[in-house]
């Protein structure tokens, strides 16, 4: 029948995958929890950091500082300090020693106006208020704060990792369930194996992208609520690249999950066969979040297809990547994904009907493999 083109069939399969998942209470609940978690994380994080920013000057209380008559005037009008007048230097030292004051302000030696005596560490705030800092001019200021330098790679990494693991596992599970319940034989009498796999990967990708988009939206919303608009403008372009890389990268992983799962016939056996695929996602994740310090490592990671999804947007964010680098890396990723998908389709096609013992990968990839 000419009406049954493979694309339509794959869409039909994808549609079922999506509606089934959207009806799963576990899926809805876990997604909701994750989104609430992100929102809460950003809002609370922002509140905490604002609190700690406001504390150094005033803080919860005040620092007691011993002053002798000669230095009493120096502490006047400085917020956050309570002057504890003592008779002389000896009394001041004694007060520092027994802890009744944090530090003592004494007349300076030759040349200096004042001198601070403290017990075991320099009282930084006191030093700061008494010092006149020189003006600083940065020729190329760092665009990104240290916190963001750490958070953004982590954010890209964790979003990709979570989504790949959740939906990759779902695809793997569904593949094995179809095999275990033998429904796959009924399906294959209507749909070629490749089309079936394509539909599964497509359905998973739509769900994955949807969930990632929801996470991104909630993040933006949270940043907006907490008034961190400058962060939004900083991550705009990297997020754009991330989305593009994400879609292709997800397809790459989804195909591997489907193929790996097609090797076994029981849900209980899924773990070991999908483990290598999981590791392929985990290692790049750790390399990217801990490797942001090394430009060379990041450059390499941004071209390796399995880590490019996380690494390239980070480099764009840090301003390390030349304009041509993301497209080139993307091309590499697309080519790899295409190759892996074809290979995965072959594995899937050849093993999806073999029930019983686990199918060896070598058997299905061999030239004379049974179809």
């Amino acid at each position, binding site marked *: 029948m000419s009406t049954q083109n493979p694309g339509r069939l794959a869409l039909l399969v994808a549609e079922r995958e999506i509606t089934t998942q959207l009806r799963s209470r576990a899926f809805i609940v876990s997604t909701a929890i994750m989104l609430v978690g992100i929102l809460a994380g950003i809002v609370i994080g922002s509140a905490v950091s604002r609190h700690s920013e406001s504390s150094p000057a005033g803080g919860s209380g005040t620092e007691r500082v011993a002053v002798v008559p000669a230095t009493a005037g120096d502490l006047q009008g400085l917020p956050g300090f309570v002057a504890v007048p003592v008779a002389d230097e000896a009394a001041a030292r004694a007060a520092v020693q027994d802890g009744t004051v944090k530090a003592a302000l004494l007349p300076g030696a030759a040349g200096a106006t004042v001198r601070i005596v403290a017990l075991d560490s320099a009282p930084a705030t006191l030093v700061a208020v008494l010092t006149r800092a020189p003006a600083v001019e940065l020729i190329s200021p760092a665009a990104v704060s240290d916190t963001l330098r750490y958070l953004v790679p982590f954010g890209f990494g964790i979003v990709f990792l979570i989504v790949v693991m959740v939906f990759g596992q779902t695809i793997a599970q569904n593949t094995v*369930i179809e095999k275990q319940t033998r429904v796959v034989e009924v399906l294959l*009498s209507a749909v070629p194996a490749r089309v079936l796999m394509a539909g599964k990967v497509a359905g998973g990708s739509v769900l994955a992208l949807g969930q990632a988009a929801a996470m991104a939206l909630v993040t933006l919303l949270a940043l907006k609520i907490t008034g961190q608009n400058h962060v939004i403008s900083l991550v705009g372009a990297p997020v754009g690249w991330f989305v593009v890389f994400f879609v292709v990268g997800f397809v790459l992983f989804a195909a591997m999950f489907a193929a790996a799962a097609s090797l076994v016939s029981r849900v209980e056996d899924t773990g070991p066969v999908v483990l290598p695929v999981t590791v392929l996602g985990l290692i790049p994740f750790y390399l990217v979040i801990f490797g942001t310090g090394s430009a060379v490592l990041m450059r390499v990671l941004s071209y390796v297809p399995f880590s490019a999804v996380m690494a390239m947007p980070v480099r764009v964010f840090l301003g390390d990547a030349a304009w041509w680098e993301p497209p080139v890396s993307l091309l590499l990723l697309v080519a790899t994904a295409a190759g892996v998908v074809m290979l995965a389709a072959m594995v899937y096609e050849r093993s999806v009907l073999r029930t019983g013992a686990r199918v060896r990968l070598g058997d299905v990839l061999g030239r004379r493999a049974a179809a």
Partner: protein
Amino acid sequence: MLELTGVSRSFGDVRALDSVSFAVERGRLTGFVGGNGAGKTTAMRIVLGVLSADAGSVSIDGRPVDAATRRTFGYMPEERGLYPRMRVAEQLAYLARLHGVDRATADRRARELLTRLDLVGRADDRLDTLSLGNQQRAQIAAALVHEPSLLVLDEPFSGLDPIAVDTVMSVLSERAHAGAPVLFSSHQLDVVERLCDDVVIIAGGRIVAAGDREQLRAQHTEPRYRLRGGGDQRWLAEVPGLEVLERSEGEALFQADEATAQRALEAALAHGPVTEFAPVRPSLAEIFREVIRDEAPRGRTAVAA
């Protein structure tokens, strides 16, 4: 007419099908009979294109079967399988759509078929909440929901109670009368005997007998007769060319050619009244045992039946 010609298939060293040829006529129910591992499922999977053949061809009305034609086939695999967590009617409609039926028609047909199979009350229940017998009906519905141009059913009656067997049978006959070739396998030889027009017997990956059920029975009928009455029947032993196989209580089973049998009947009438005289036709089970026995056993058992 569905026709398999010289179909062979091996799994590793095991030859599951060895140049298998047989036909399934339109409008007729064809029973596919064979022992475990004889090759029934492999042959059926090849017809459906779920498995590929090493050699040989499958054609319908003289044209080789392609993927588009196969999509109009209906299949019930031996290993039952539907999505356990999907609602029955929804699942049937989904399968119909995979076979190219549009959404509205698919929904309507799913309901109709469930009504026909006395399952409509469970249409919106999840499959795994159904009893095994009802799951079996749902499985049959899955094979029928796209109004297939050909039906292949692997053990459709196993697990069904006698009433369900009748229901399913009438549905299958309907499809056959609508012009679809219907092929089904069964271990229940009495069911096949009762329901099938044609029979194909496979053993060790080879077709050992195929054709019209009655013709097959006639072919495999040894010249045996049953005689009831005709006196004490001791005289039977003296009829030349006649061999008595069993005799008791005024009833005898003997082997003889047609002319000798007629002479024996005349003699019987001369000895006393005859209440029964008839050729003995073997049951399908007997034919099955006979043809299977003639087959040399294979060295190895097939991995896939």
